[in-house]
């Protein structure tokens, strides 16, 4: 535990920092939300720029994915099971909320394991779980499939859009001087990747989630960036170990393989996602229901894409707070509490 005095010291350092400008990208939606909740942005020196990167799974899920889910609900009569946030994300044609209003079955669950249980209890329904998320949540998606295999279910599958961070770190390296690495992702995958990245010139600090942990990670990052050498620091050692969780990694590896993935607003990043291996194709909704490629395109002035890359602030988007607000989100970043636009709106006193 850090004492009160050192909180004040860290804060003072971040408030008065007057070295070279530093750009720090946080790549975890929980960090984004917590930084706002703690009011940290307001006291940072103008020399420190925080960029809310692509770390909220709902925000980076492409609109075409929602189109696929809508297709499964309305054309194939599947029961969709999903985390609540995803229901409100606009697709190119409609959101799942609209699909539900048109008679599609959309059920909110709190875990993929509950979705599998639901499928088991409702053999007359074809249940699809909307599998989005990062390294932190993929293991539970895999456990749901493992349970479906165990239970001999033929009515449960995943519509995968699972993302992995390593590809994104490299793809976005030019947008930032250092990353605030997501503590929970690295609790699973360990720290080797970060060390390798530092050798290739990509810097970052693994951060925890309390106010003190965030201040400490930011202070360490600013100090190291200002010294000019690539670096890696694990500022969340109470949870993140070098090796991570080999058991979780092995479990995911058994069921899933790497694939290219589309990130909303950023485009396709090679090897930045995972999908079910061929031997589990029966649990892959895309294959099971021969989901066609979605080619809709919606014209919108929404700037979520460049917000996610840190090129503009949410408030610089022409729709922000006007056509786009948490009650009527136009872009995904306004949907989830962890989205940059939503956090900006709620804690910025926009409402």
């Amino acid at each position, binding site marked *: 535990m850090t004492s009160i005095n050192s909180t004040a010291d860290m804060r003072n350092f971040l408030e008065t920092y007057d070295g070279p400008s530093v750009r720090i990208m946080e790549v975890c939606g929980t960090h984004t939300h917590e930084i706002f909740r703690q009011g940290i942005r307001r006291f940072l020196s103008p020399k420190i720029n925080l960029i809310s990167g692509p770390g909220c799974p709902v925000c980076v899920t492409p609109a075409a994915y929602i189109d696929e889910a809508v297709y499964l609900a309305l054309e194939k009569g599947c029961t969709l099971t999903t985390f609540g946030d995803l229901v409100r994300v606009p697709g190119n044609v409609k959101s799942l909320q609209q699909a539900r209003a048109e008679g599609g079955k959309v059920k909110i669950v709190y875990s993929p394991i509950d979705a599998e249980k639901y499928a088991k209890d409702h053999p007359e329904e074809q249940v699809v779980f909307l599998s989005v998320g990062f390294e932190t949540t993929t293991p539970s998606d895999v456990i749901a499939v493992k349970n479906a295999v165990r239970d001999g279910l033929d009515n449960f599958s995943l519509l995968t859009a699972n993302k992995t961070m390593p590809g994104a770190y490299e793809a976005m390296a030019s947008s930032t001087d250092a990353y605030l690495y997501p503590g929970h992702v690295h609790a699973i995958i360990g720290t080797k990747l970060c060390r390798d990245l530092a050798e290739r010139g990509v810097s970052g600090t693994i951060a925890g989630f309390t106010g003190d942990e965030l201040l400490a990670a930011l202070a360490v990052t600013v100090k190291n960036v200002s010294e000019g050498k690539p670096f890696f620091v694990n500022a969340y050692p109470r949870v993140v170990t070098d090796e991570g969780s080999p058991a979780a990694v092995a479990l995911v590896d058994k069921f899933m393989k790497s694939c290219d993935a589309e990130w909303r607003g950023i485009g396709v990043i090679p090897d930045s996602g995972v999908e079910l291996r061929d031997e589990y194709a029966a649990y892959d909704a895309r294959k099971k229901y021969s989901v066609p490629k979605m080619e809709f395109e919606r014209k919108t002035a929404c700037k979520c894409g460049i917000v996610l890359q840190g090129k503009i602030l949410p408030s610089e988007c022409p729709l922000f707070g006007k056509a786009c607000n948490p009650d009527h989100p136009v872009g995904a970043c306004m949907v989830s509490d962890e989205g940059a636009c939503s956090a900006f709106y709620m804690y910025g*006193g926009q409402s």
Partner: protein
Amino acid sequence: MKEVITLAHGSGGRKTSELIGEIFRKNLGNEYFTADDAAVLPRPEGRIAMSTDGFIVSPWKYPGGNIGRLAVCGTVNDLACMGAKPLYLTCSYIIEEGLPIEDLELIAKTMGETAREAGVNIVAGDTKVAGKGQVDKIFITTAGVGVIGEGINTSGKFAKPGDKIIVTGDVGRHGTAILLARDEYGIEADVTSDCAPLWEPVRRALEVCPEMHVIRDATRGGVGTVLYEIADEAGVGIRVDRTSVPVAPEVSGVTGLLGLEPLYLACEGRMVMICPAEKAQAVVDVLKGTKYTEGATIIGEVTEDETGRVVMTTEVGGQTYLPKPGNELLPRIC
């Protein structure tokens, strides 16, 4: 087989009389309780306050209470907010056909006990039975009359810059208890509702501070919603020190997991009081020595700037607006 409520219990005939006699009179009875068409009551001296509230909480029974306790406390506390000593309540039951009679008896027993604890008489009632599926087990509406102490004038619009803001205990308990009782999240935690009648602590607070500006019970929408309402009504700003807002560890554990803001979770036994700064400590001291408000503390102050807003000072000394109440509040919390 368990005896259950049938449509005949609501017919106004013999079964209704049995219900009134064996369940309601037995548990709620007092000198004013009537089976006639209206209760006849002595006229209180002074201004009276009158309020009504409907209760549809699901599930009807939860750790720390049931809908009966809620129905008494809800109206008693609404009266107390105006500085009114609660005198009389009426209650109207809408019962779903098939409710076990023993459940109704438990609810009536709880209401009787809570009313006696609150020092209020339940004087009249009504019972209707609705068909299966038309009501979820039982809905209760209570109405109450109280008498306001001389010189007491409380209202959300009386908050003034410089005033201190007090909460009478830890926040978010009732909402968390209900959420857990629904068992939709697969989380187990030992959280009990804070539901309690608060006239006695209010009476004592008004004794040391008769010039109290605002008293409001933080029910649906929690303390956060109350603070925004007051900021709006009085045209002032509100500054809250987040570290001084009391939250029980088990409540913050659950809200942390689910991403909920404890300030927006319902309380059923907590008041927000706003009074002149020089009286605030005396009010807190007297509340601390009174049952149900032992956890009273000052959480912030009313400001002239930031009109209509609630500003939070955070754990790391940052400042941020408390996000306005969203649309995700739990339905059927009270």
